[in-house]
């Protein structure tokens, strides 16, 4: 369904506009005090609005390709940041988190929105997979920010919060992989494929599994664990952006 009777250029401009408004508000959220707080919340509002409008335009939940996925991940990052800001008292976390999620907003613009959908993606299991996958990524992202914040000021409680963020992200990520396996089995009759993409997704899961075990080993708590947690997000980002570009992952027969 076409939301507005717009030309191709007009629609591209609208897409950019709908991403830039919340991005600008997120950046302005760095301002101190209540003004910054309300600007950040306005950013969330306009971000939700942009995702809803995109969904109305394409007539389905906008989660099937990179432009929409990255924007959705940035929105969940905003919510996770909000939680740590308001409930855990990490008032200065925005210095690290808000620029990062603004970068993701810009990155989403680098991918052209696609309005068509393969019949193989028309499954609730696929949507559940993507939905939880990027919630997991959002937790990993904000946890990496908390890790950086901890390295900058050294307060032990922040390292604990990073761990809590990662374990929640890892659980959600695990659920997303279960949903993804069910979707793939229903679509293609297999729940595993030997491709670089699958190997790297497994690698992300095992990497965070390694982190969660490492944190309980004496000598690895504190700074080493924080660094491992931060690196985890780099691994996760590489799995999403790097595989297919840096490491080739050509489409299989599927």
């Amino acid at each position, binding site marked *: 369904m076409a939301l507005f009777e717009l030309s191709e250029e007009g629609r591209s401009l609208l897409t950019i506009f709908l991403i830039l408004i919340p991005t600008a508000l997120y950046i302005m959220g760095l301002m101190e005090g209540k003004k910054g707080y309300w600007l950040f919340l306005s950013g969330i509002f306009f971000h939700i609005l942009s995702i809803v409008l995109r969904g109305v335009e394409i007539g389905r939940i906008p989660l099937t390709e990179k432009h929409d996925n990255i924007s959705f991940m940035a929105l969940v990052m905003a919510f996770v940041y909000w939680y740590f800001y308001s409930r855990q008292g990490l008032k200065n976390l925005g210095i690290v988190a808000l620029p990062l999620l603004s970068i993701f907003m810009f990155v989403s613009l680098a991918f052209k929105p696609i309005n068509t959908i393969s019949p193989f993606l028309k499954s609730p299991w696929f949507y559940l997979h993507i939905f939880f996958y990027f919630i997991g990524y959002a937790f990993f992202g904000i946890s990496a920010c908390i890790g950086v914040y901890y390295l900058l000021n050294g307060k032990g409680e922040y390292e604990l919060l990073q761990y809590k963020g990662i374990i929640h992200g890892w659980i959600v990520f695990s659920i997303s992989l279960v949903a993804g396996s069910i979707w793939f089995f229903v679509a293609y009759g297999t729940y595993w494929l030997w491709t670089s993409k699958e190997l790297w997704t497994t690698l992300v899961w095992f990497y965070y599994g390694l982190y969660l075990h490492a944190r309980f080993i004496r000598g690895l708590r504190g700074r080493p664990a924080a660094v491992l947690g931060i690196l985890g997000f780099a691994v996760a980002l590489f799995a999403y952006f790097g595989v297919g570009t840096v490491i080739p992952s050509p489409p299989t027969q*599927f």
Partner: protein
Amino acid sequence: MKAIARFFLSLKTAFWLFFVFIVFAFIGSVVLPNNLAFFSGIDDTPLFRWLSDSGNLKLTWWIYAMILMLALLAVSTIFCTIDGTIKGLNSRNLILKLSPQVMHLGVLFIMLGHLLTASIGFKTDMRIKEGEKKVVAGEIELYLEDVKVQTDKQGYYTDWEAKLWWFENGEKVKEEVLRPVHPLYFGQFGLYFKSVSIEPEPSALIRVCRDPGALWALIGGVFLSIGGLGFVYGRFSA
């Protein structure tokens, strides 16, 4: 025996097993796309059969190494789960203490599922033309008719379906519509609509699978999810 138990109960052991597994998975992710022709059939055959048929250790050693690491991780997980369950039963917050063990159990079931899929699964692809009858795996007799496709403005296929007749001893038993992401299950076999062609004549590429590991992997996935949610609940209620 105690030394073995201590070794597998150690978090350091788990850490290094994870680490080495990650290294092998990384190597695989580089080797695999650079030898596509060699690995082209790996997803069409149960893994262990493909490995023994391929006979090229230079290109497949990392798969054996990953399997070995997974086997060691499974042993470590079994030891840790038994130990964690015994300790957790005396705990006040039972959900918080036992949910990681439920997750461990889930991982073990998933590994069992992969093991069964890799060893005794069955997969084959067959193309059936409209109006044609084919026998697959010596057991299934299928007849295809009424292939339909939907296209968008550019002419790309957006959806498709076909009618499948199922025969046993020459008698029609069932008639069902097969569509993408809507597989049909007949006995032990699953039928999946992989792709469709209209030119030069309507035909369907259908994957036929028998995967005894899938149910175990699913049970594992359910355990993993329940354990994870239990852990989150346990933390918040603590």
